[in-house]
């Protein structure tokens, strides 16, 4: 199989479309009153981010994003939301008293980002390194198991601890 370069079509449109969906549904996540609607908005954000990863020639990360985030974590969220009492939550105040502080902090953060991007624009290399997309998975796999073997094992340990912790927390009587 010859490794061939793909020529993306209509990239800017895809980019703007996906980004718009991502940002708008992210706003939906924090604005909706009903947590289930928030979770559904989160799904849209995550899926459009997976699309952005595909545009960045990171298909493996995109696949993991879909299978783990959308198929796993969001299902977990929905599962928990179903167990707890939504009707009461919807009737309450959705925002706490520090919204002003929060907004201020966010604005400062935004200004910081803008400053960094404006000042640091020169630092970014303009031309991307080209990877053969066909071998992305293989390369990521090799890197995971050769260069990052120790972090990988630590991550697996972390997951084990998380499983045990979650079970201990959620179980009524052990």
């Amino acid at each position, binding site marked *: 199989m010859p490794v061939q370069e793909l020529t993306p079509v209509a990239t800017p449109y895809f980019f703007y479309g996906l980004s718009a969906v991502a940002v708008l549904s992210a706003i939906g996540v924090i604005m909706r009153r009903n947590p289930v609607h928030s979770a559904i908005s989160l799904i849209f954000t995550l899926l459009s981010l997976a699309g952005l990863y595909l545009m960045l020639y990171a298909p493996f990360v995109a696949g993991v994003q879909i299978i783990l985030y959308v198929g796993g974590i969001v299902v977990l969220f929905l599962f928990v939301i179903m*167990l707890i*009492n939504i*009707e009461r939550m919807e009737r309450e105040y959705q925002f706490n008293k520090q919204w002003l502080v929060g907004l201020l902090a966010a604005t400062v953060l935004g200004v910081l980002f803008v400053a960094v991007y404006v000042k640091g624009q020169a630092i970014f290399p303009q031309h991307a390194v080209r990877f053969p997309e066909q071998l992305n998975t293989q390369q990521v796999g090799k890197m995971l198991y050769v260069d990052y073997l120790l972090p990988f094992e630590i991550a697996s340990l972390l997951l084990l601890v998380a499983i045990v912790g979650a079970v201990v927390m959620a179980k009524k009587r052990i």
Partner: protein
Amino acid sequence: MADILKSEQSSSSVEHIEAEKGVAPPFLDATELILNMGPQHPSTHGVLRVILKLDGEKVLNTECVIGYLHRGVEKIAEHRTYTMFNPYVDRMDYVAAVSNGLGYCEAVEKLLNMEAPPRARWVRTILTELNRIASHQLWLGTHALDIGAITPLFYTFRDREEILKIFEKYCGARLTTHAFRIGGCLYETYDGFEQDVKKFCDFVTPKVDEYETLLTTNRIWLERTKGVGILKAQDCIDLGVTGPVLRASGVKWDLRKAQPYAAYKNFEFEIPTGQNGDTYDRYMVRIAEMRQSLRIIRQAVDSIPEGPIMGKVPKVMKPPVGEIYHSIEAPKGELGYFIVSDGSTQPYRIRVRPPSFVNLQALGKMVEGALMADVVAVIGTLDIVLGEVDR
């Protein structure tokens, strides 16, 4: 949610509502919920309503609500003559109408201090046992359907059809037969009755084995039935549970042997029993009972005596003042009729002891700590008919 429950809730469930009134309604504890199973539900065998308090899938508490099919059969009896009431009993346990009729006719005969002629008793035995097979077949099909096996239903209905054909040929009705009269049977057997019954016996014997090939050793069936809905022998006796449910718990009690009625004392048969009293044992007991019924039918057909089929009964039935309790072994358990006579043409009071109603009381004990799916299996294994529970 709370409003719906409050509007039509039986007393004990209202207590839950009171408890949650302070806080928010739908979930009682963090993860508990009330599930209203029935009266319209595919597997409550009619209009039984079971209110389940669930913790996830686990059943914390059950509450049976009955009466959706109540027709006041016992009250109606007080305004009918003894003969006129006879068809009503068929409508109680409509899948075993013949047994109901037998119990009523024999009770009234006992009250009249008379006995049906031998030929009538033989015919009654044959028809009742046929009906027992039909009832068990219907039970097997629906019970398997409850547990998720859809195929046995069609097999059993195919074979039950043959029994109903015999009924139809004998008395013209298939379901609510009204086959017996006080003092005997109204109809003489039709030509070829014996051959039909024998042919049916030969036909259905391999079919019973066929049901077993589908279920008895099926891994999923074993997992779903073994150890589910266990009822100990002592619990059965305490709750008054009778019939196959009692026998599956290891109690060898069958009215056909204990207090023989009709022609049963002339036939050889065994009382199949189980040991564990779980759903699987009840299944095995009923399958074995079908085989024993076939055995009885074969003996009865071979030894059917000649003679009149209807005894001598007065035109106007006026039983002497007194009371009588007569019970028979219906397919579902002990079916008893308690009749009080004030010497008039109408009974003063009739009380029916329906096996389904009494057996249903065991439901709460059997599903304690079980899962939601077990409730369905247990309702199936109790073999209740709501026409009989509500009367």
